């Protein structure tokens, strides 16, 4: 896939919101995985009607590649300003690829309580899963070469942009 063939992030976000609208519980909590997922969670809470409290999760302490990569330089604080016990939670990430970040996020979530239900929403599902994890809602599904990473960024005005990078370690 060529970089200029990537879909527009804002249009994809609206498509994701359309899929979730009416399908997610009225009081579902939106939990974004740092950093891209956090931006999307905030936007979705504005776009989708309902009582959607927003939380953020940093999965650094739960990753399965700590022994190989160590701790990343800037770990953010997980903030879940609501009871996880018994809640309906939509985990939100920018790109769903191997599924390993989502696995880490689910583990972390359960250290806060036992949710009634956890769903997954992603802006981009690029395939390539290494774990039995699927998104209930995806803005777009793309086939992407293994040597490319899809990267979400946010500009000064808060506009979301999709780009690609050669994938490193």
């Amino acid at each position, binding site marked *: 896939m060529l970089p200029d063939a990537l879909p527009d992030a804002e249009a994809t976000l609206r498509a994701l919101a359309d899929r979730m609208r009416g399908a997610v519980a009225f009081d579902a909590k939106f939990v974004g995985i740092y950093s891209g997922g956090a931006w999307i969670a905030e936007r979705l809470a504005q776009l989708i009607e309902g009582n959607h409290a927003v939380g953020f999760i940093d999965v650094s*302490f739960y990753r399965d590649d700590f022994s190989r990569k160590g*701790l990343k330089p800037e770990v953010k604080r997980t903030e879940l300003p609501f009871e996880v016990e018994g809640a309906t939670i939509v985990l939100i990430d920018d790109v769903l690829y191997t599924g390993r970040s989502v696995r880490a996020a689910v583990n972390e979530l359960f250290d806060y*309580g036992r949710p009634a239900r956890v769903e997954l929403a992603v802006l981009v599902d690029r395939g390539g899963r290494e774990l039995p994890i699927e998104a209930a809602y995806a803005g777009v599904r793309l086939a992407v070469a293994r040597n490319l990473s899809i990267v979400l960024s946010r500009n000064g005005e808060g506009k979301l942009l999709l780009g690609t990078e050669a994938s490193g370690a």
Partner: protein
Amino acid sequence: MRNPQLNAAGDLTHLLTLEGLPPEIILRVLDTAVPFASIAEREVKKVPLLRGRSVFNLFFENSTRTRTTFEIAAKRLSADVINLNIGVSSTSKGETLLDTVDNLVAMNADMFVVRHSQSGAPHLIAAHLNRMGRTHVHVVNAGDGRHAHPTQGLLDLFTIRHYKKDFRELTVAIVGDVLHSRVARSLIHGLTTLGTPEVRVIGPKTLIPSAVQSLGVHVHHDMREGLAGCDVVVMLRLQSERMRGALLPSTGEYFKHYGLTGEKLALAKPDAIVMHPGPMNRGVEIESAVADGDRSVILPQVTFGIAVRMAVMSILAGA
């Protein structure tokens, strides 16, 4: 020669002293401790980061508090913790320090937390591991002689930053037995590295090392003068064993001149915080009313100490 605390990639692999550590590394520890501090507020106070790793607490010198906080920190990271009270084990049978270490490495130790009455002992262990190519085994200095106590220095820095934000605007006073204090030495190195413009040490001439000015601090022998306008007051424990050396006339006399009272604290800024590394001698270096007062952050220091040690251990283990 390379700083023995850093690996070939420049990452922190042992924590031996704050002296000579670049500010980025110190700030990274302080930043990483913030998310660890919030884990203590959860119901499950544990993360799986060091699952399957073994942390050995090697305490050649007694310390209940430091050993306990290291143990809690390692357990909250899901590591297995083995406490060795070396004073009563192998070394009393004549085994050398490095032989003890080699044996524990053969038992698959991943990290050593070392306290020793001899300055330089943790450094000796780290250098030995580096020389043997044991790059996956890490050393944390939990206090060596009069030299350094870097995790205490870091938790003091974390506490100051938590209440006061910007080091570059602060006046910090360290009061008491600076001569024998590895806590003071580590804190001074940390504060100056992070750009604290004014660090003062306050104490009697007999307890202030003559070379301390070379560390960039201002020396005061009059406590009232030294406390004027301070943002942070760090009280040091008066080590009663030092009294024998005739360095001081009496604890009563000491309290009169260098004990922190409400009346003396009033000379510092109105929002100044009071710190103490513990254990405290009430009525010797600090008045009970101040230790328990609303400016005291002595107990938060203990809580933050766990988060800071979690940050140190996870950064080292990931190097």
